[in-house]
């Protein structure tokens, strides 16, 4: 690991060196920020706050073409994934989320699409100096400067960025821009520590999850599920915008004689998610679906992969149209234990 310093005056040059390399950065579209490709002559500004749409679609696209075929012909054409990319300004929680989701996609069978994309992407993180209102990453093993999953971490020190390399991919990126960087001295490292602890102090929400994974099965029939889900609309917001949600459906789509098999995001909050062909639905109401969302994150995933499948990014809280708040649900769960 090395720590280098990039003076902000050199920012446009730094970006200039990366734009030819399929660089993506947060971009404001309307009022909704999401990751978008950076054009050749564009210099993105990194602002406070996380993207509204998580970067998970970079490695797990909302619609992934698995292969194409012609109707009446059995030859399948698989798309070739080979273009490397750089994701600049990903927040620590979203990088941690990828590490969590990796476990699923490399579990019983290796998922070639996901894993290939993961291999091709370099994650350049940005430590959070102004955590959002509903961030609670520190409760779940992360933090505003957590490096888990990142190749390189940038820390905003006012007039410069501190660049900490974490993996060989990060080293490689730094070596390509090395003439713009200088070695960071202990003073700067101290500044970083101060900024990080201040930032942690700004996180207002927290979840005490001790006992929750083991306790959830015992609360299966608890009345709390009905009350916390009563107003739920059963939309895709909380799951589609969650960086760790990874459910998908596979469907064939045709256009004339062209056909393709795609994998697309699905959501356990949708009614048809568990609908059987017989018409029976084992999760018939939003009560069961909400219970599943919480259990999947805070119980099943822990059981299987030994980690909570929530990184505390707060998106599901920020964007639920009816103020269903996972921190509040977990508080009630804890109370009911």
């Amino acid at each position, binding site marked *: 690991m090395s720590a280098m310093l990039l003076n902000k005056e050199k920012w446009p040059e730094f970006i200039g060196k990366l734009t030819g390399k399929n660089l993506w950065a947060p971009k404001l*579209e*309307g*009022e*909704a920020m999401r990751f978008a490709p950076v054009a050749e002559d564009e210099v993105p500004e990194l602002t406070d706050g996380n993207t*509204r*749409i998580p970067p998970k679609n970079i490695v797990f696209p*909302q*619609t992934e073409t698995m292969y194409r075929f012609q109707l009446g012909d059995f030859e399948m054409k698989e798309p070739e994934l080979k273009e490397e990319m750089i994701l600049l300004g990903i927040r620590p929680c979203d990088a941690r989320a990828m590490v969590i989701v990796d476990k699923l996609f490399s579990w019983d069978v290796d998922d070639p699409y996901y894993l290939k994309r993961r291999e091709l992407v370099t994650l350049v993180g940005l430590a959070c100096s102004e955590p959002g*209102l*509903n961030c609670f990453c520190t409760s779940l093993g992360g933090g505003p400067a957590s490096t888990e999953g990142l190749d390189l971490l940038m820390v905003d020190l006012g007039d410069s960025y501190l660049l900490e390399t974490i993996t060989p991919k990060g080293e490689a990126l730094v070596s390509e821009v090395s003439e713009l960087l200088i070695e960071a001295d202990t003073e700067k490292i101290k500044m970083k520590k101060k900024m990080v602890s201040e930032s942690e102090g700004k996180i*207002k*929400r927290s979840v005490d999850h001790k006992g929750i994974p083991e306790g959830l099965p015992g609360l299966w029939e608890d009345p709390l599920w009905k009350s916390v889900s*009563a*107003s739920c*609309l*059963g*939309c*895709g*917001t909380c799951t*589609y*915008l969650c960086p760790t949600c990874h459910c998908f*459906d596979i*469907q064939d*789509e045709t256009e004339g004689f062209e056909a393709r098999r*795609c994998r*697309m*995001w699905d*959501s356990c909050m*949708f*009614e*048809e998610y568990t609908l059987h062909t017989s018409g029976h639905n084992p999760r*018939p*109401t*939003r009560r069961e679906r909400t219970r599943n969302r919480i259990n999947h994150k805070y119980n099943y995933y822990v059981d299987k992969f030994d980690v909570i499948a929530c990184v505390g990014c707060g998106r599901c*809280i920020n*964007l639920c*149209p*009816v*103020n*269903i*708040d996972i*921190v*509040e649900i977990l508080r009630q769960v804890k109370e009911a234990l």
Partner: protein
Amino acid sequence: MDLEQLRKTAAEVVVREDVKYLIGWKQGSYGYRVAPVFVEDASGAAELLFSPLCTANLATYLTLVEKTPLPRGQEADKRKVALLVKGCDSRAVTQLIVEHGINRDQVIVVGCPCPGVVDTEKLAEKYPEQGKPAEVEWNGENFVLLCDDKETELPRDQFLAEKCRLCRHPNPVISDITVGEPVEPWTLADDNGVEEIEGKNLEERQAYWEEQFSKCIRCYSCRNVCPLCYCQDCILDRLNPTWVNRAVNFSENTAFNIARAFHLAGRCIECGECERVCPANIPLGKLNRKMAREVRDKYGFEPGVDPEAEPFQASFKPDDPEDFIL
């Protein structure tokens, strides 16, 4: 608004034997959020709230009830549902009655005359949301933000929600019990809310909507929150045949958004909920408002104001204009 009176009325309604529950608003978990609440007993009524933050249209819950098969020997709960409504929300209830989506005698409408709600996004832009829930009140002319023991007056013309700027029915058009005094309908904004779109030529419109629809993530929040999107068998969920592919791209997103706009023509009551909930900030209000303007100007029809009306899309008159038919 006299909250005491609201809570007292609600408590009286909810204890009635023929009432299942009352749906209202309560303070949310932080910032400017307000959450829908299902009140089942008199004590629950103490949580109820009616303030300029109560934007949500609760009428959607009338049709969102999941009907699961009843265990053998169990009778269906046929009790009524009581509902707090603002002016716009009451239009949704009326429209549902017109369409036979609900039975008039199954709902108790508790009308809350509404002086207009705030645009919480604009509010949060100027006064960032905080962890602690804040309150906003009406003070006659304007809104007042109560936060950290501080009172800040919010000029009405700056913070009024777009849907309210164009609202013609601030007093509930239908109600069994009214809480509070009727409000004086205000002078409407002199634009029609879609001038920006109407000023564009065909190519510009195409480009505009292409950009907007490309952002859609197909979370279906807009559909699910809409009180008038309640088809049991929605065209979007159909797999056999698949009318709209699940793939997320401009073409399918457009098919979805246009299908929804057409299905709501002459039915949308302009409550603005779809636009409020869209996580991609797609200006859905413009789309639905444009359709509503067309229906009103061409056919002189306004949905959700008369429970005795015939549904627009099912009513043909020989002199209906058909100049758009090629």
